[in-house]
């Protein structure tokens, strides 16, 4: 369970207020989509929630641990143990091959069964290929495998389909949602694509650093049913 209270984040010495007192609760195993226009603060919210950045004030409590009070070392340990990331630009280690990239996540938690995850994302045939030899969709699948290989409790996704074409994007989203259901981790996805919100349990819409709308989907659509 993640409990966020009165979260404030500013830049440029307080001149730019990006998050203006955000409060929200996220249940274990929930799929949350945070959406909003560019500059609404959704990516900053994700960075702060995942422990990549520290908030100016407010609290973020993960199962009793307030990460807003942690120092850099404690945050590193927190991310190591609990968090996985999938980014729009993949951020794979280009000088390594698929297995080596997946091992980056797996080694953190001593997971030796990373080959299973590579198989799950359909990259067994290309596991020895270098990153530059893969298509965008395949690279994103490596990024998914890397994130899942560390068996995270919380998976953060920043525009995971932003750099993909429609067909690949749908396939990738389908993979992620299926894997989330199988593994039961909490998933927080940031996107400007409102259609993706139809797949989530909970949707949070942000505007100018504040949550303007928050609702739960009664019926959820699959990646192949949503508009693009």
């Amino acid at each position, binding site marked *: 369970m993640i409990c966020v209270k009165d979260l404030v984040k500013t830049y440029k010495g307080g001149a730019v207020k990006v998050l203006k007192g955000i409060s929200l609760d996220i249940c274990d195993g929930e799929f949350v989509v945070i959406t909003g226009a560019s500059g609404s603060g959704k990516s900053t919210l994700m*960075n702060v929630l995942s422990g*990549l*950045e520290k908030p100016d004030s407010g609290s973020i409590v993960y199962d009793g641990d307030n990460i807003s009070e942690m120092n*850099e*070392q404690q945050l*590193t*340990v*927190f*991310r*190591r*143990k609990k*968090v*996985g*990331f999938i*980014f729009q*630009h993949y*951020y*794979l*280690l*280009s*000088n*390594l091959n698929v*297995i*080596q990239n997946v*091992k*980056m*996540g*797996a*080694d*953190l938690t001593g997971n030796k069964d990373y080959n299973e995850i590579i198989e799950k994302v359909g990259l067994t045939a290309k596991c*020895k290929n*270098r990153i*530059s*030899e893969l298509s965008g969709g395949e690279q994103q699948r490596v990024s998914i495998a890397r994130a899942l290989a*560390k068996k995270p409790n919380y998976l953060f996704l920043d525009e995971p389909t932003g750099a993909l074409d429609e067909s690949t994007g749908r396939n990738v989203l389908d993979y992620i949602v299926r894997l989330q259901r199988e593994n039961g981790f909490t998933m927080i996805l940031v996107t400007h694509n409102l259609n993706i919100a139809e797949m989530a349990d909970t949707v949070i819409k942000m505007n100018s650093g504040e949550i303007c709308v928050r609702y739960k989907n009664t019926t959820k659509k699959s990646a192949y049913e949503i508009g693009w």
Partner: protein
Amino acid sequence: MIVGIKDVFKLVGVIIVVFCAIFVCTFFLNFYIDAKSLELVLNDEELLALHRAQMATAKFTCAISGGVLMLIALVMLVFYIKLYIDSHAKQLGILKAMGYTEREIALRFSVFGISVFFGCAAGFGCGFAIMPLIYSQMSNGLPEITIGFHPSVLVLFVILPTLIFSAFACVYAFFALRSPANELLRGKPEKLSKKPLKVSEKERGFLKEMCIKTLSSKKSLAFFVAFACFCFAAMIQMAVSMYKLSTKTMGIIIFAIGAVLAVTSILMAITSLVNGNSKNIAIMKAYGYSTKECALAVLRGYHFFALLGFAVGTVYQYVLLSVMINIVFKDVGAVPEYSFNVSVFFITLAVFIVFYEAVMLLYSFRINKISLKQVMEEN
């Protein structure tokens, strides 16, 4: 337009190495020219032997130190240009896509010759400034030698290197820019490796893999790390020996040059290593790897080359001094015995370990400051 005058000052490494080379060469070659005529007036056999030994030392040091250091400067220049082209590939690709030819763009790289000019001019000036002291010590026992200004030395050590390095920068850039515009814009496709993974490779942990890959993708940096440690070992130990064998001034000069070259090379190598891997480090940190783990993954592979450089430097200084004492100065009386100084070796090794670890610690702080946000903003 790309490559401006401000880029000249980024080649600090080249400026310092060229400075050291020209500084040493200037006073040795000037001494050689000024003292050469003494041979005709010296009647005493012992003085003649001392004079010949000093002439040989001047010629030998000028050729070896100057030659080697200029070669290192050339390698550094190539390294800088390659780094510049890699980090500005997109801008260069746009210029090529717009219709600028390789020749037009490459010509702009001649600006890097100005760095060499700065190093040469400063080295020449300082070499001249220290000449009275060097002359008085080197002519010890010989008739007084007057310092003369030789325009040919100025041309050889300031004008010529500037022109050669400028031309070399253009030629190298011309060939380096021959990739198609599209390749510069999108990045060069990596060579396919068809070699199957070995069993041991499968079992290696991620950090070890990362360490090996970083080393294999930045091989040239291993040379600079080894060179830095070579300079440290050779020049510091040699400086202590020169303090006893020759003069305090020579000892201090060699010590200073050794320290400057070692610090410059190692900082340059590790800076480019950390900068070149900042994206990987940021991702690793985001995933929960500690600063120490990131530093080890990126820097650990170079430790062997550091030790290798130190070992080669130690052997080099011993052989060089043995040759100088036993061959060049063999006919000169009152030259002290030279043998390998074990205590100096261990002290230098201890200082080297402290120095090397301090550099690693410094870069750990730098790695600690790399954030994923910064990398994301660059995209």
